[in-house]
């Protein structure tokens, strides 16, 4: 989305006199406008998506054949770790935050976020965070340090992190910055939703997206400080002689895992809730039918948020916790399937007996629904203490969480992008390219990750730069599919840029037949300042 199109298009609407703002680079650096900041978040997220995608393609190149052809294990572990850390911390969350910034004020009829300067700050501390995460990787080629963080994105093996080099220190600082950014964003969402709703916009009339972000924000406020504490303890263990995680000094390596997963599991819902908030409206728009079970889904979000915060140790069932602990975490984790199942039920009921058309956003929404369904179901079996021994730390788990993270979160974000792109740019995207992107994503995605789950069940461990010959043919297919999947994403970005540059038919306020909500009452693209006079919601 170029500045010019946005600006020029906004200028056409002469009922908005408040469009004066700095131009050029100052506009972006100093912006306190929720749409500018939202766009910057989305652009940042997209860049990180591309970086992390390239990293994993290098990894898949190494895994094409058994043996080490492309890189040594040291580099391999760094690439895998960076891929995970960037995708989770620097792609999914910023991209989703971009949507909340852009959409929440428009959805609730506010003129901006409640705390605009904090909003600007929250975005701009992301950039140094990303640099901190990546820079040790490049420093190693100049003989400085031993490379980026390499213990998996959860750095859950605390004794290994204590052994490691400066990559970990950089990551710890990066996590603090990302955490600050997330906390400022979360506070902003909560304050905005509680205070700036238009008259008549009661809580139970808010779009589900706002509800999802409200739950997400409370989750972030709960978990980010714990993560901050955990990595700070790691830092003092490394440099100041404390023994939080060193058994020889009375510490416990598992304590780190408990703290980390107390953050790490709710983090999954932080990534997914915004998508769960978007999907119902897309499905309802293209099925030309109201959302089924709105209230039910609001309660589901809260139920999942609360349950999601008390199940963390199902990531640690082979760590040797007491039997009672294992059983508790197994049963409580299974209980999440009930609100989640209810949500999927509501999605299906939303399209049931509708009058559907299949534009690209709908295709992606349906795809996300099915892919997340597979992710959820293959996850339902994982917390089982007995079978967990078979699944833990194998490629099965990797396949499973890619169905939720990529199939659920990333494809969901793409659905939302296609859905709101005409609103943001004022132009319709290229439908043919969109459909091509959909099929070229779904097919290789399913081949790659379905087979990945199967090699995992057969016993292939994760984080392995090399594997026994029995897994060779499967890995070859997985890698080949991954390359196609990666290349297909170029179509997506090409399509966005093309649309943002003003190609494609002009669209009106109501882009999609049947779309509900205040954002569709605004011109496309929306003016620089929206709702200077709050609308009356009936």
């Amino acid at each position: 989305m170029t500045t010019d199109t946005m600006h020029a298009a906004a200028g056409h609407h002469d009922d908005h006199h408040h469009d004066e703002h700095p131009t050029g680079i100052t506009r972006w650096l100093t912006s306190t406008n929720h749409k500018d900041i939202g766009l910057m978040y989305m652009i940042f997220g997209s860049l990180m998506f591309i970086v992390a995608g390239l990293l994993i393609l290098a990894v898949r190149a190494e895994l094409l054949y058994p043996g080490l052809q492309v890189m040594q294990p040291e580099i391999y572990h760094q690439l895998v770790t960076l891929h995970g850390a960037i995708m989770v911390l620097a792609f999914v969350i910023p991209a989703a935050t971009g949507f909340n910034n852009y959409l929440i004020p428009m959805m609730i009829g506010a003129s901006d976020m409640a705390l605009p300067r904090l909003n600007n700050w929250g975005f701009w501390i992301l950039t140094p965070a990303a640099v901190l995460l990546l820079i040790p990787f490049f420093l190693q080629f100049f003989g400085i340090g031993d490379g980026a963080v390499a213990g998996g994105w959860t750095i859950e093996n605390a004794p290994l992190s204590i052994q490691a080099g400066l990559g970990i220190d950089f990551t710890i600082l990066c996590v603090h910055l990302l955490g600050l950014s997330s906390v400022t964003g979360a506070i902003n969402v909560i304050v905005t939703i509680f205070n700036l709703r238009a008259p008549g916009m009661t809580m139970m009339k808010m779009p589900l997206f706002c509800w999802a972000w409200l739950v997400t924000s409370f989750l972030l406020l709960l978990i980010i400080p714990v993560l901050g504490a955990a990595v700070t303890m790691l830092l003092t263990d490394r440099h100041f002689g404390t023994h939080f995680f060193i058994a020889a000094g009375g510490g416990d390596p598992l304590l780190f895992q408990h703290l980390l997963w107390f953050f790490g599991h709710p983090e999954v819902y932080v990534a997914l809730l915004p998508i769960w908030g978007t999907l119902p409206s897309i499905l309802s728009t293209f099925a030309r039918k109201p959302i089924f079970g709105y209230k039910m889904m609001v309660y589901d979000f809260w139920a999942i948020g609360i349950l999601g915060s008390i199940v963390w140790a199902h990531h640690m069932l082979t760590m040797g916790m007491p039997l009672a602990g294992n059983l508790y975490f197994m049963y409580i984790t299974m209980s999440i399937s009930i609100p989640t199942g209810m949500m999927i039920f509501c999605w299906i009921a939303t399209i049931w007996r509708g009058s559907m058309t299949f534009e690209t956003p709908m295709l992606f929404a349906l795809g996300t629904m099915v892919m997340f369904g597979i992710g959820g179901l293959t996850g339902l079996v994982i917390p089982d203490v007995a079978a967990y021994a078979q699944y833990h730390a194998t490629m099965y788990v990797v396949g499973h969480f890619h169905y939720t993270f990529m199939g659920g979160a990333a494809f969901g974000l793409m659905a939302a992008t296609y859905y709101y792109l005409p609103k943001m740019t004022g132009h319709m995207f290229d439908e043919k390219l969109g459909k091509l992107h959909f099929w070229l994503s779904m097919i290789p995605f399913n081949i790659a990750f379905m087979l990945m789950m199967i090699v995992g069940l057969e016993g292939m461990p994760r984080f392995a730069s090399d594997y026994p010959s029995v897994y060779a043919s499967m890995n070859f297919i997985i890698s080949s599919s991954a390359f196609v999947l990666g290349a297909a994403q170029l179509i997506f970005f090409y399509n966005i840029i093309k649309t943002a540059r003003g190609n494609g038919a002009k669209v009106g306020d109501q882009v999609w037949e049947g779309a509900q909500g205040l954002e569709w009452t605004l011109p496309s693209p929306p003016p620089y300042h929206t709702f200077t006079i709050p609308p009356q919601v009936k």
Partner: protein
Amino acid sequence: MKCILRMTTLLALVFGVNVAEASTAGGLSTFWFPEAVTPLAHDVMGVHVEFFVIITVLFFVAFGFILYAILNHTKSKGHKAAQFSMPVTKTQWAGFILPFVGLFVLDYIVMGIPAWHAAVAMEDTQTDAQMVLKVTGSQWKWQYEYPAEGIKFVSNMSTPKAQIDGKEAPGENYLLEVDNKVMLPINKKVRIILMSSDVTHSWSVPAFGVKRAAVPGFIREMWVNIEKPGVYTGQCSQICGKGHPFMPIVVEAVTEDKYKEWVAQKQAEAAKLAASSEQAWSKEDLMKHGADVYDKVCAACHQAGGVGLPGVFPALAGSKVVNSKMLDESGKLIKDAHLDRVMNGKTGTAMQAFKATLTDVDIAGVVTFERNSFGNNMGDIVQPSQVKALR
């Protein structure tokens, strides 16, 4: 409709590939679970297969509804959109609640009860245990000890570096072969005690249905009772540094008689080894033995030729630690000198205390080798008996 056709093709394709692959690799009947050879693995496999049947059915039921809607409830077919947004009648409420009652029953009864039994069985390591195997994970090898039999050895991966680097074709057991296999008798309940000497590792053999972390500073337990002779393999399942993919687990299960033979042979070897550390070794023999140990143990970090990896692992060629005195006048270790480093390690680094894993002869050999190779020319040697006295 084109969309549906494509979607069906997609599904057919994915499942086609799956089924084709499955027929070569164990079969769909157990959902890719490896052949189970312990009571625990049978339990685990039972749970696994049951769960996979359930989730497959759940998927196709849900997907069936979606597919039906996609095929029929479309604008192109002229379907008029209904306007309901919640259940209203009693029948609708019943239809709404039923799936969740079903899910609850599935979760806590159909899946929950067998899972409970398997989990309890898994933790019962002590009842009727007939022998103990102690496993210690360390970067990047496994040490095994049979406390009652007095046997102790280290198990390193034996796949040659040339195969990994692609200079030779991978062998049949590529990455799943070791110099010293763990021998276990069949039909005996073996209590396995897990420890770690550095970072967290994880010992896993899929055919036994077990996987458990070896946590530094803590003791973890599990058990196996193997029903069938054979060679079973697994790999470390917790990322533990650069050698993580290269620390396989190979267990050979044999009959009781063969196992006893092996124990006797190992004990004889151990006695011979103990005797050899008493005798005086020549410099040539020490150098030759030391070169072998170096390749197997030290070269992973310090590299062939002792050049190290700049910034990560120090070079031994020309190293100050190697090229200085290591014993004081009274024959005691000088702190942080060469022999002290090898025996006691350096805390907070990957340099571990090798006195735990190497024999007296190994340590004497490798130290002598390092002091007189790579351009280092100290000229002195260490005798195994000296190492023994310094332990």
